[in-house]
């Protein structure tokens, strides 16, 4: 099973995703802002990061640059979970070299399948 870090400022979203992730047997960690998220990524070395783009200090795009720019963290896949318009998210994921996205509101099964797919690709 994997360790998954969710960086998201809205507690209701964290609670929902935590239920899904832990029901699949994964370890779950969360951070409410970019700087906490970066620190937690350093200390916990997660297998996957779920990232919201709208964060209250630095936004998700900036945080992804910090994560990808660090040699220890750069290989951790990042899945964007956001309410931003899909075309903007698509461009963002491509430009920032991220691993995928789901636009809110998304079906829970899509989250499960996308997590499985990214983790499967990582271990394959």
């Amino acid at each position, binding site marked *: 099973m994997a360790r998954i870090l969710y960086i998201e*400022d*809205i507690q209701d979203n964290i609670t929902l995703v935590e239920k899904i992730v832990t029901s699949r047997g994964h370890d779950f960690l969360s951070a409410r*802002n*970019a*700087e906490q998220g*970066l620190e937690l990524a350093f200390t916990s070395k997660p297998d996957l990061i779920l990232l919201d783009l*709208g*964060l*209250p*200090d*630095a*936004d998700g*795009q*900036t945080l992804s*640059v*910090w994560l990808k*720019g660090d040699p220890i963290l750069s290989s951790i896949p990042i899945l964007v979970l956001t*309410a*931003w*318009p899909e075309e*903007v998210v698509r*461009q*963002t994921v491509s*430009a*920032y*070299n991220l691993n995928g996205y789901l636009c809110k509101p998304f079906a829970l099964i899509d989250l499960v399948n996308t997590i499985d797919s990214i983790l499967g690709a990582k271990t394959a």
Partner: protein
Amino acid sequence: MTIEPIPADRFTIQELTDLYNQTRVDYLVPMPMNADRLGEYVHDFDIDLHQSCVARSDDGQVLGLSMLGFRRNTAWITRLGVLPASRRTGTGSALMDCMLENANTLGVKETHLEVIKNNEPAYKLFLKKGFVETDTYLVMRHAPRPLGDSLQGEVTWMDFETAIEKLSAYPKHLTWINACESMSNSPNTEGLYLSLPEGAGWLVYRNTKFTLRSTLSHLIMHTEQGDPVEVGTQLLSHLHTHYAHHDTYAENIHEHDPHLPAFEALGYFTNFSRIEMRRSM
């Protein structure tokens, strides 16, 4: 329901931050802030918290907020937001009336604001309050990426004072966010000047330090001589070679800015557009 406007300076920055974030939770482009960022915003954009408003119902419920920036003869309405449960109750209209009344009291000649394109409810409210559309601006992003080996020209990096001196002579209109006063209020402002064989220009920007990293934002570019696309491409190439690992957020680039092809050539893409609106008082 009676809506009472309360001066925002009766609230702490943390309380205003929490309220602002709650108003934006389902926004077209959610952009939450923390108290440090809102405090910086108030400082950098000359927000007058006494003239800014929190809307409260007669039963004491907080409904929304709006902020008013003030510089000489101009006011700027920003951060207007209503809690999702309080929409369609006249709160937004009451907040706008409060802002316009306060702007009038300050003796301004014109009030400005910006609205995200496709935010129809807000846009219609502003039209109803007498605002007219002036220009459209792009908010663009640039992720770090490898650059080709094509740097040309001689670059001089500008410190805060030199960058502000250049910006103060900028010949075109800048929105409130990138105006010389806003850039002067930030200690993170710096710039670069470029001389090419057949051109010259400058780029002023903010290099904001977070606890762990830095990021670039608020780019303003000007070509003094030569082709804006050529000068702009070289200015951005030098910037992103120097700051190879910085994320960049370029706010309020005019939709017809002659440097736009340079931004696009360097990999910038549009996140969203803003419409600037003005109202004579």
